[in-house]
């Protein structure tokens, strides 16, 4: 399904040195030692002072971290299944230990007499985290673990992080930012999910109808695809803008529509634009999905005496479902990102934090908006991908 499945496997025989993990290990070591790991700021606006690994968690901690990173690289010199498993354990352990590093740093660096003081996560920390996740991806590929295993592993690590953040990481800037507006955060999260769900479900229904009509009328197919392609080309900010002006005019001059809730700024233009963008991937995938069903199978269904309606709902549709779900996945992931932009025109959602944070130069608030969006996109992507895999006739790939 993903691109990688298309490639023949790389050198899978063990014993051949694994340059990838060694590079990642060197990268993590240099990120941890050369870049600032954490930063401390007296309040939310002032840029923090950045601290290196040794000042943040002391020599014992720094040596432990280096040992873990070196072990990942060292085991890759002579790879074997056992070594890969050991590396997987080390990487997971490191991921679990990372929030504790923040706790130690917070304990040492934050002056308890300053209630506004906060601990920021530095570039070195982010880079090391990113490289660790890459290690995980690489190990998953080498060990040929299923998607489910990695998802379970990552969600347990995520849960551990959340527990740490909730219980002990009070002086972390991100946590403080969240605590200052937790109700707002949940509401924005809900708004985001609702907007995405409405856009995706409308486009699924419209997409299915449109694709079925296209199969009947060839001319419609060409016109509709040209139109949807055209819409997709227009940048999101511009499409939102182009909808704002006419809708504002309508709301101002047609009182009936204003009563219905149509207005220039807000949810209406956002939803229209979201649905317009969602239609192209949806219609394209639905059309291809319905079109690609094996004609022999349909022939067999006909020969068995199935009526056209039965053939569609009992044969064509179930067989098309995996590719159709692929369309839903692409659409949903795209809509999650676009809804963030919609915050600019007052539609709410997590994007609000991004743009408010940018406006106030409060970077932790930007993170509070951007990170959940990223996680949301990854979860939806993994969930719908797994569902499509499960529905594939003949089981998994």
């Amino acid at each position, binding site marked *: 399904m*993903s*691109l*990688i499945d*298309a*490639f023949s*496997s*790389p*050198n899978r025989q063990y014993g051949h040195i*694994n*340059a*990838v993990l060694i590079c990642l290990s060197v990268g993590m070591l240099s990120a941890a030692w050369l870049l600032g790991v954490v930063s401390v700021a007296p309040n939310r606006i002032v840029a923090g002072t950045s601290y290196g690994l040794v000042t943040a968690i002391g020599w014992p901690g720094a040596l432990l971290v280096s040992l873990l990173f070196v072990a990942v690289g060292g085991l890759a010199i002579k790879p074997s299944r056992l070594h890969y498993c050991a590396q997987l354990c080390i990487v997971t352990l490191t991921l679990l230990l990372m929030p504790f590093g923040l706790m130690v740093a917070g304990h040492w660096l934050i002056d308890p007499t300053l209630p506004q003081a906060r601990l920021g996560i530095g*570039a070195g920390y*982010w880079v090391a985290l990113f490289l660790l996740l*890459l290690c995980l*991806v*690489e190990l998953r*590929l*080498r060990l040929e673990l299923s998607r489910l295993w990695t998802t379970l592993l990552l969600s347990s690590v995520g849960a551990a992080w959340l527990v740490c953040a909730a219980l002990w990481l009070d002086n972390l800037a991100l946590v403080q930012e969240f605590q200052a507006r937790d109700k707002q955060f949940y509401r924005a999260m809900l708004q985001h999910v609702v907007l995405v769900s409405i856009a995706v479900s409308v486009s699924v229904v419209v997409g299915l109808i449109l694709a079925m009509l296209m199969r009947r009328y060839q001319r419609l197919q060409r016109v509709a695809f040209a139109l949807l392609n*055209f819409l997709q*080309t*227009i*940048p999101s*900010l*511009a*499409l*939102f*803008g*182009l909808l*704002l*002006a006419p809708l*504002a*005019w309508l709301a101002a001059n047609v009182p009936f529509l204003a009563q219905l809730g149509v207005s*220039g*700024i807000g949810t209406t233009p956002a939803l229209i634009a979201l649905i317009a963008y969602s239609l192209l991937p949806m219609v394209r995938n639905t059309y291809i999905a319905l079109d690609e069903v094996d004609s022999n199978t349909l022939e067999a269904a006909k020969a068995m005496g199935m009526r056209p309606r039965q053939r569609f709902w009992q044969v064509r549709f179930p067989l098309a479902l995996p590719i159709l779900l692929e369309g839903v996945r692409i659409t949903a*992931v795209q809509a*999650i*990102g*676009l809804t*963030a*932009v919609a915050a*600019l*025109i007052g539609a709410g959602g997590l*994007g609000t934090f*991004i*743009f408010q*944070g*940018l*406006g106030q*130069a409060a*970077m932790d608030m*930007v*993170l509070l*908006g*951007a*990170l959940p*969006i*990223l996680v949301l*996109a*990854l979860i939806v*992507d993994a969930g719908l991908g797994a569902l499509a895999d499960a529905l594939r006739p003949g089981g998994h790939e």
Partner: protein
Amino acid sequence: MKRDGDRENLLMTAGPRWLWPVGWALMLLVGVWAMPVLEPGFRWLEPDARQVIYSRADFVSLLARHVFVVGIAAVVTISVGVLAGIAVTRQWGRDFLPLIGQLASLGQTFPPVAVLALAVPVLGFGTLPIIVALMLYGLLPVVRNTLAGLHDVDASLKQAALAMGMTSWQVLTRVELPLATPVILAGIRTSVTINIATAALGATVGASNLGDPIIAGIVNGNMAYVLQGALLIAFLALTVDSLFNALQQQLQIRLSAP
């Protein structure tokens, strides 16, 4: 016989192919230079506003900055992306292929806004973070399509080329790359299209470009500004996209020509 007919057809369609990009580019240029002429129209939209034509910077320089940012990002993206794609498909770089392939397809999941927002805390406000964010994000489609394009080249063709005595460099430049070009070009098109849209969002992080009138319009409640910015960005995107479309068709004709 059939082939001659085909060629005739191709000649017939050769003209209109370039009509779309030229048309959109004309619209863009007219929009950039002649926006003040349209003042009565915008006045009708915003009768109460003090000013209806965005004037904090002239549209020409806004357009120039937009194109500059996207252009720099595109040059870096294309060169690094294609080189990386080539490197991991060679024998010596094959170890990295699974990771890079996975990363390129996983990265498509990251919303561009989130990438832009995450770049700011690290790199600060202004034009530089946008260029970096655009480069990082734009890399993924290019790498992905380079890998897919090179992978799709028939293995027996490569073998035949080797058997003819070509060096592996010649196989790459004369067989693999020409055959993979359409797919790579499609990746570049995706990358540049996304980047034009994302660059417009850069107006919120202090880069001045065509996104500026839209943001200023939303903040001040002036729909005329919003419309001006939106129209120009849309024209720019359509110009570039139709240009790539024409290029792709041209390429297809060249590849299928005898």
